[in-house]
């Protein structure tokens, strides 16, 4: 599965401070830690405190590019910030993210095509967060329809069902998991699926356990990608084990170690 490291985010105080002080070393260290722990790509988010996200994201990208060539996941709700990042990014980009709103799709789908980027589509719209599986599927269908009309390759589209905290929306968890499976059947070829994992445990007292249990279950429902904390070793062990049980890798006694050598 595609593992996107979530730790370069201005929400974290040390990252916010590094962005403010333009201290590359903090960013580069965090980038390498995540890659060493198994991240296939790195999320890059300037955070709410950034006054100039358009230039901050460029600075972050350039700092990270000095130490790794891994794909970068440009994370902003503002399309112009993402575009600013795409302009300087060498290598593969993941756009994080569009919603099902036409005004967002209109800008971001052509950008994804232009830069040959992967695109994350959130099943959310100006009407708000979906309340059940059917609403999620409806929004996913809207994103898919827009992408296929625009000739954007569906295999490069990652649909996110929007994972809500378990202490906020416990009744929706089953539907979110089922949506992951059903996103696959609404189009051929199928889109990929992704979750922002840590949200499931937001505001709870057992974050690690909730994260790894939800991820394991989501993998069983066919999840393709997740934005998560790769430095959480228990989480990564669960992920590797879940993939093993799903026959994605060949078992051996040192399978955890074997996976980490990939």
């Amino acid at each position, binding site marked *: 599965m595609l593992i996107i490291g979530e730790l370069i985010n201005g929400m974290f105080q040390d990252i916010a401070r590094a962005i403010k002080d333009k201290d590359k070393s903090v960013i580069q260290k965090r980038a390498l830690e995540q890659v060493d722990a198994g991240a296939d790509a790195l999320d890059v988010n300037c955070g709410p405190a950034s006054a100039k996200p358009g230039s901050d994201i460029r600075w972050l990208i350039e700092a990270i590019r000095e130490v790794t060539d891994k794909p970068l996941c440009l994370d902003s709700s503002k399309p112009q910030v993402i575009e600013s990042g795409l302009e300087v990014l060498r290598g593969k980009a993941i756009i994080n993210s569009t919603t099902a709103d036409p005004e967002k799709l209109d800008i971001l789908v052509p950008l994804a095509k232009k830069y040959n980027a992967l695109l994350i589509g959130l099943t959310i719209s100006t009407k708000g967060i979906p309340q059940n599986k059917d609403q999620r599927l409806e929004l996913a269908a809207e994103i898919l329809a827009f992408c296929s009309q625009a000739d954007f390759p569906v295999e490069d589209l990652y649909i996110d069902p929007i994972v809500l905290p378990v202490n906020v929306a416990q009744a929706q968890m089953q539907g979110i998991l089922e949506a992951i499976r059903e996103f696959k059947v609404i189009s051929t070829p199928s889109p990929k699926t992704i979750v922002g994992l840590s949200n499931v445990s937001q505001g709870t007292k057992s974050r690690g356990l909730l994260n790894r249990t939800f991820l394991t279950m989501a993998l069983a429902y066919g999840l393709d990608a997740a934005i998560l904390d790769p430095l959480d070793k228990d989480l990564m062990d669960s992920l590797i084990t879940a993939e093993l049980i799903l026959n994605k890798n060949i078992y*051996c006694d040192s399978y955890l*170690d074997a996976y980490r050598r990939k």
Partner: protein
Amino acid sequence: MALQLATEKWSGEISEVIIGATKDEGGSRKSVVRIGGENTLPFLFNEGKIPNPVCVAFEVWDTAPSDWPECLWRAFGKSLNDSLSWAKKCVEEYKAKILCVRLQSAHPDFADTPPEACAKFIAGLLNAVDVPLVIIGCGDDAKDNLVLPAVSEAAKGERCLIGSAVQDNYKTLVAALSADGHNIIAESPIDINIAKQLNILISDTGFALSRIVINPTIGALGYGLEYAYSIMERARLAALSGDKTVASPFICFVGQEAWKAKEAKSEDERQGIIWEMLSAAALIQAGAGLLVMRHPVAVEKVNKYIERLFQR
């Protein structure tokens, strides 16, 4: 409309193992043999690169193979009684590109030949022929741990392929081969999980994964061939999907298994030859890189088969 073939793009690649070292490379071989290096399934030339054709090694023993069937004795004649002339016959008469020598006489149940004598024999063999060597111990772990390091040292710089390391006995051999610059055979009992684990154990010692050749253990036609085939196929699919721990070329001891079959010991000597050929042909399709075979006619036919398959 022209027919469009669906092609697969793999992310992994099988490591290329070079057996033998020429004078320029610190050895004394006239040529080297390369196996592996492909990044697609066998013979899908349109999907990726397959740089090295499958290679056949003649099996030679350091002692007369008393239990070999008559048909094999008839093919080689008296040369089977003298290892050096047997080896020379393979190279000069049958044009072997590589030999696989089994140090059977070292086995406590045979002549219990001491390590120094085995080392001397290998040195003599390296003088007598100029092709690369695969060297196999006698199969007794305790004895092989004495014999193979001595042999490894005697062949230092010749970049042989030496085995076999098994899950419960690999450290001594790995240390010796590492010091002397050889490749290693990692043997598992028709078990993909153990094959993977052994590769990890060997590479944990610092020995490069790219110098390992997997002996998956095979069965001949009618004796588990399809089981070996499926294990090899599974490992190969995983390797091409990016699992480096199983991305090693395969060596298959076809002759040893085929001539054990009761069908191969038929009065009609063509039957044994066919048994060895057919077992080899299937294993080539499964992804074997190096086949160890016995009967010169079977080798000749299989080489022709390989040549035709590689005409693309």
